[in-house]
């Protein structure tokens, strides 16, 4: 996966990622229109498929609203890299099949707009703009298994012996 970087600070909460006033929306495409609305009004307009959100500590803190992960995924974001994640956001992203990367190094090595490439299985993050390559720890095996089948719904269907979508 590859795209450009959107870079943010520590403690980015789910209210600014997806404001409560839009919680009545049920369609992911509509949710995506409001992604990051209270944090960065340029995001929803400028994000393109494959882009990567890079942030500091405790990304996705606050509400359990899955729409925070859904709106990013459907806006085209391929992965979120952060120094750490709030636990519910972490689960929501994985359950939707969106890989996330925990890294203390990557946030220091990218600037907004940098072009980056990620080799998820190989644990390699390349900043194409600067030429720097950073290694990261892959997700735990059990968690990766959920991401690899496309999220918790396909995972559960398999477990129950039901056909995939």
């Amino acid at each position: 996966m590859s795209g450009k970087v959107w870079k943010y600070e520590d403690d980015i909460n789910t209210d600014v990622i997806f404001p409560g006033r839009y919680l009545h929306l049920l369609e992911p495409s509509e949710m995506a229109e409001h992604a990051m609305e209270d944090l960065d009004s340029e995001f929803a307009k400028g994000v393109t498929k494959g882009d990567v959100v890079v942030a500091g500590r405790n990304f996705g803190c606050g509400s359990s609203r899955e729409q925070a992960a859904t709106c990013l995924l459907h806006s085209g974001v391929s992965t979120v890299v952060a120094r750490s994640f709030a636990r519910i956001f972490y689960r929501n992203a994985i359950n939707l099949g969106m890989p996330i990367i925990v890294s203390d190094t990557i946030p220091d090595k990218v600037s907004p707009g940098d072009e980056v490439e990620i080799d998820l299985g190989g644990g390699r993050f390349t900043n194409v703009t600067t030429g720097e390559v950073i290694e990261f720890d892959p997700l735990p095996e059990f968690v990766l298994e959920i991401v690899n089948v496309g999220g918790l719904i396909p995972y559960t269907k398999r477990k129950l012996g039901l056909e995939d979508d």
Partner: protein
Amino acid sequence: MGRTIAEKILSRASERDATVGDIVMAKVDRAMSHDNAGLVSKTFGRIGVPHVWDPERIVIPIDHRAPANSIKTAEGHKLIRTFVKEQNITNFYDIKEGICHQIMPEKGHVAPGELIVGTDSHTTTYGAFGAFSTGIGATEMACVWATGELWLRVPSTYKITVKGEFPAGVFAKDLILYIIGDLRADGADYRAVEYHGPTMERMSVSERMTLCNMSMEMGAKAAIVPPDPKVEELLEGKMERLYTPVHPDEDAEYERTLEYDVSDLEPQIACPHAVDNVRAVGQVSGTRIDQAVVGSCTNGRLDDLRITADILWGQKVHRDTRLIVIPASREVYLEAMNEGLIQTIMEAGGVVINPGCGPCLGAHQGIMADGERCIASTNRNFKGRMGSPDSEVYLASPATVAHSAIDGVIADPREVVR
């Protein structure tokens, strides 16, 4: 080695001897969803299982945007009402009943030792009853509805011991704000918290709910008070099923042990736009406010309305301030009416609205305009939380909110609570 409450409950729920770091498949005792049950039901439909695993164990209250604030919300609520009928889910509480975290224990859906999941981050509230309860997302809940289980990593535990008597005008809300300010917004991320000590034993279950509810704001996966006779008393007559209270072993292993003494604690306030941006109220007193809110799953119970009415009795809300009061549930509302609290609050100029989440999450019933400022007994003050991204929310105890509503500025409740 001894076990913490989290280890014991998750061991029981996963039918294995589980310790910190293990990933277990756990069977849940209760699964709660609120307005987002509409979203969950759509996702559930994609799994392809015709029926939920156990309709008796699913609880759905409508509280976040109740009554419906838009056509889209109304459509979402309609989806839920159809789904609960189709699936024979009888523990459905329509807009009249109140906030999910209040009615879960009121209606007997919470018991000591149980594993409860909810599609709301403040599901940690039920730890006040000795349950391991935690928030999950909509997709995960859809899978719980299908299978009755989910994966959980067994968390390590922080043991927090609380000592001392609260000074007049200082409450459980001030304590949890102080702890969050101390440990920060991610200070307990992925951890369970156990609250111990003489102050916890003296606290009412309602006050313990305030603590467990807001422990989520420092990232806690679960926050648990060892259950005692006060909990059992409260559940008497509400519970048909048997339950087994769970206590930690004497030699349980804790990742951290912390101690707080409330004897000298001052009223606390979380300033915009982060819950861990906590100061003593005195440091921001005099700050002008446009709106004051008493309510929410954190502080909308009878004791909160009592202190609010006590402070408002014979007083008037400041002419430039709007006071909105939201009883947490119908039961709380009725009891508050019986006690004359609603009359006192309304005579003082407060607006008492229907039980539910009110303006806490910024969907309706008290949205703020650009540049406006609110003091609230709620649980989050993120940018845009209660309306415009250019408005501000300060979080404090109901006493601080009520006293500030009269003065029209942030004010220390110790001036009036003796």
